[in-house]
């Protein structure tokens, strides 16, 4: 349909959704560490903010106040839409270009 577009998903967004889909909620620097150099500290927060706007991830502030002081961390987890989008993209990639499929 010309009026409706598929939700877009960049490589970084796909990677973040993959990492978040593996387990518990994660915070920004945890995602950077888990990506083994594929995600950078300077861009992860902007990407996460954009993904929240798109509805791919949701976030909350951590429960326990930090003992050492400082601000509470923001924890991220994928939404149902985010999971569906990454599944759809993986499926499409596998179908059209098997060599790029994970």
């Amino acid at each position, binding site marked *: 349909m*010309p009026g409706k577009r598929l939700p877009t998903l960049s490589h970084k967004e796909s990677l973040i959704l993959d990492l978040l889909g593996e387990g518990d909620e994660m915070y*920004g*620097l945890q995602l950077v560490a888990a990506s083994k150099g594929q995600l950078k*500290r300077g*861009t992860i*927060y902007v990407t996460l903010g954009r993904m929240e706007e798109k509805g791919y991830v949701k976030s909350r502030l951590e429960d326990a106040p930090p003992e050492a*002081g400082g*601000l509470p961390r923001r924890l991220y987890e994928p939404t149902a839409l985010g999971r569906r989008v990454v599944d759809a993209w993986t499926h499409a990639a596998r179908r059209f270009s098997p060599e790029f499929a994970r």
Partner: protein
Amino acid sequence: MTRPGDQFRSMARRLYGPRTMEHLIDPVIADIQRDHAEAIDAGRLWRGRWIRFSGWWCILKVVCLYALTAWAIGRTALIASTGTALVTVPLVLAPLVKAAAFIQADGIEVSGQLVTYLLPQALVISLPIGFTVGAIWNLRSAVATWRIRPLILATACLCSIVTFLNVGWIAPAANQEFRMVVSGYSVDRGTNELTFSQLRQKVNESGAADEKSQEPLPALFWYHDRLALCAVPILMAGFSFALTASRRRFRWLNAALALSAYLSCYVLFPPEQVAVLLRWLSPIAVAWLPNTFLIIAAASMVTFRAQASSATP
């Protein structure tokens, strides 16, 4: 010893809105502060210093990236303003040239005030055109248009309201002032110098008498012409959305052709020629003709693209 990012945070709170602080600035600072605190607690002093240093670098990158995103909106506004200005200049110059004989004969100085009187009538046409150029610039890439569409529609509604106030009250008053300055004496208001309510009253009073009127075009035409002008920004928003259906390399060409044709409806057709059209069409139909043309152009682009897509195997 202050925690890393505390000073920046207190400064940033004055610059950024609550949502940006909560979802962009605070998560960066929180992660840096917690990392730093954990390193210091573990007695890793140099690690703590490194986190503090690299944290600043990280904050700088986040702020720059955010500024680039904000600049994209600013750049669109700049392009829309430039488009408006480029169309406004000839629309201001045209009546000045037309009135040149009076201005020279009476020795009237072409002052800023005289130009100011001509700005509102020019903005009636140039504002929707500038807005459309800005909207098309924003939608030049098909990516993420669904995020920007509400913003474009809201801006279009704002432009429509501004145009309504302009054509209804500001432009008539400015036109009348211009005529009085140029003629040098008090002149009666013409149809273009009537406010919306006065024009509506004239429409109600005239009725069938309009056919015997000395004026080339009936008041009903002018009334609907103004209403049609108010609707233009919203139609232009729809037109710019339809443009995204056309191929990227043809997008600017399609836009230029459609906007030129639309502009020529107002610039190239003087009242005498519009009067000819009124022999066959009703005043309302003639007044809404440029807008109808715009709707047809938009619908054609969408239909053509849909057919092209369905024809592709």
